[in-house]
């Protein structure tokens, strides 16, 4: 398919940070067959329980993974940026155990699982990079459990902002000190186990304390050290994704 190199550019740059890929590895990724779909904001890409035969790579836009409790409350498990593989676990787990949904309008590439498995067998360095990506995902989930379970409201939100800023910068999307938040306050609340009322209070309080300046969703971090201290943020858990 034409435009393939551009389509996987962000993913390849990410995988190159995780393992030493050579020209043949890169060419093998670029040669993967895929289909691109354009997805509206808030649309479900993968639904819990469905059997999956393709993995999806986020090419453009933002997305999140989530699960819903029997009482209807939603827990957001992670936020995702361009270049992220949104459901790498489907390489070996055929049934989706959570939902994947867009935050903004997005473009995703669907890669047949059989093609990805062949790639891993034939190009061990690519397999190593995907292994690392999956393990880093697990590390991020562990940090989120700590965040939701043991930190106070202000630290939870500060931590989420720090992580988003650092990952966004690592993905080549700009400075960690100035960015637009794609997610709503309700989505931040569902990611931090709070309500949108609490999220608004904390964001206002960061503004009043001079930690951030905020114009609607545009965030400018005025005091990064203070924000990192409030967040209890140590980027070590992001490993090579930071």
């Amino acid at each position, binding site marked *: 398919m034409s435009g393939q190199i551009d389509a996987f550019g962000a993913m390849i740059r990410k995988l190159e940070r995780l393992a030493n890929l050579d020209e043949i590895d890169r060419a093998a990724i670029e040669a993967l067959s895929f289909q691109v779909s354009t997805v509206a904001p808030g649309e479900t890409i993968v639904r819990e329980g469905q059997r999956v035969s393709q993995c999806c790579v986020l090419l453009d836009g933002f997305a999140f993974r989530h699960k819903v409790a029997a*009482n209807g409350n939603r827990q957001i498990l992670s936020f995702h940026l361009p270049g992220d593989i949104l459901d790498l676990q489907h390489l070996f787990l055929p049934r989706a155990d959570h939902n994947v949904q867009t935050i903004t309008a997005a473009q995703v590439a669907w890669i047949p699982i059989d093609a990805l498995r062949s790639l891993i067998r034939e190009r061990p360095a690519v397999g190593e990079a995907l292994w690392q990506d999956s393990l880093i995902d697990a590390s991020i989930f562990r940090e989120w459990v700590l965040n939701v379970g043991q930190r106070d409201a202000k630290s939870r939100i500060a931590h989420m902002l720090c992580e988003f800023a650092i990952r966004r910068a690592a993905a080549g999307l700009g400075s960690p000190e100035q960015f637009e938040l794609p997610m709503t306050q309700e989505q931040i609340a569902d990611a931090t186990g709070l309500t949108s009322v609490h999220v608004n209070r904390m964001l*206002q309080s960061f503004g009043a304390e001079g930690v951030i300046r905020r114009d609607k969703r545009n965030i400018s971090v005025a005091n990064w050290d203070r924000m990192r201290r409030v967040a209890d943020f140590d980027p070590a858990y992001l490993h090579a994704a930071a």
Partner: protein
Amino acid sequence: MTLTFSPITLDNGDDDSDAVLALRDGRLAAVLTRLGSLHDELANRWFVESTFNSGVPAPRQTFESLDAFADWLLDAHSRSPIRSAARAE
């Protein structure tokens, strides 16, 4: 069920300190705050900070009035599994 509201000021250092204790048959059932101007379109609505019956978790929604909250609480208690279990005993 008799629900009464007792005004109180929260020591939270922000705009949301105007609060009430919601007493259900004389027992503390919930603490609500009247949201301040920093909440834009939600300003002046009532937000449930906490409830004290594990079968009636604090709702995420806000309420236009304390009467609306009372209606919600009555309904939540009627659906509470904890209350149902007590009835079954």
